[in-house]
């Protein structure tokens, strides 16, 4: 989880730093930043699945579902 979140945050900061000089990259830096919580949740879910704690795995799945819901409610409005 630490590695996944650290790599995502590092990539996001690097892309945003480049994006300050070259604007097309900025969007991808922010998009990577917005994906950071989902990356954290998914990697924690893998951890719970590995030790067989399925109740928490499904709680994570529910959390991930709500995150997807925000994107649907945000972008798919009429």
């Amino acid at each position, binding site marked *: 989880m630490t590695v996944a979140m*650290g790599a995502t945050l590092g990539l996001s*900061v690097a892309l945003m730093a480049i994006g300050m000089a070259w604007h097309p990259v*900025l969007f991808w830096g922010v998009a990577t930043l917005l994906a950071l919580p989902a990356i954290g949740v998914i990697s924690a879910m893998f951890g719970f699945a590995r030790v067989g704690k399925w109740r*928490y795995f499904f709680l994570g799945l529910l959390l991930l579902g*709500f995150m997807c819901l925000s994107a649907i409610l945000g972008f798919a409005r009429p």
Partner: protein
Amino acid sequence: MILVPILTIITGSPHQAIGTSLAAIIGVHGSATLFHLREAWVDMKIAFLLGSSMVLGAIIGAIAAGFVPGKALGIMFAGVALYVATTMFLPARRKPETQSDMLTGPKRKPLGVLLGGFVGMISGMLGIGGGIMNVPVMHLVMGVPTKRAIATSSFLIGTAAGPGAIIYLARGDVLIQTIPPVVIGIIIGALAGAWIARRARPRWLRAAFGILLLYTAAQMLWKILT
């Protein structure tokens, strides 16, 4: 909490300030979570338990904020800022931690989940992290030890800020070009803050934060009401 008034003063729009603040919160609390994960203080079971209600609350709060006029949002934010600033001048409330608190799981889970949803809603609506409410919910209501509550709250804040930021972004209320300097600036500022915190008295730090918060909130109100 300081970020929303500062961004409102710069942009003149509370909606854009809140959206940009939520996006920046992800980066700031992401880096804090990495530190807490290394020290193994984050309790992912509690995080997943409260996470869903917090995220749902944040979505409702972010959508509702779209229907609230900027002036009303600014006044609501000022009310919360006044409350937080007041708590900075009062002694911190801590429940004595026993050995059983360390061993047993969280208590009063349904109430914790309900309050988590409320914290998420305030966070999504006003663009604040919610740690000031999250930590007391976990520590005082659910009996989670302070250090674990702070670390878990850090993960939860970033998790709840994400969906809120997406809704603000879709509405066009996130200033993308403002995020990099804010995130990089706050991470550097946090390092400097940690250096100062080791040398200053906690009471003075709390009082200084309270005064700064009151000042920036007053400036924000002046900007949006005049």
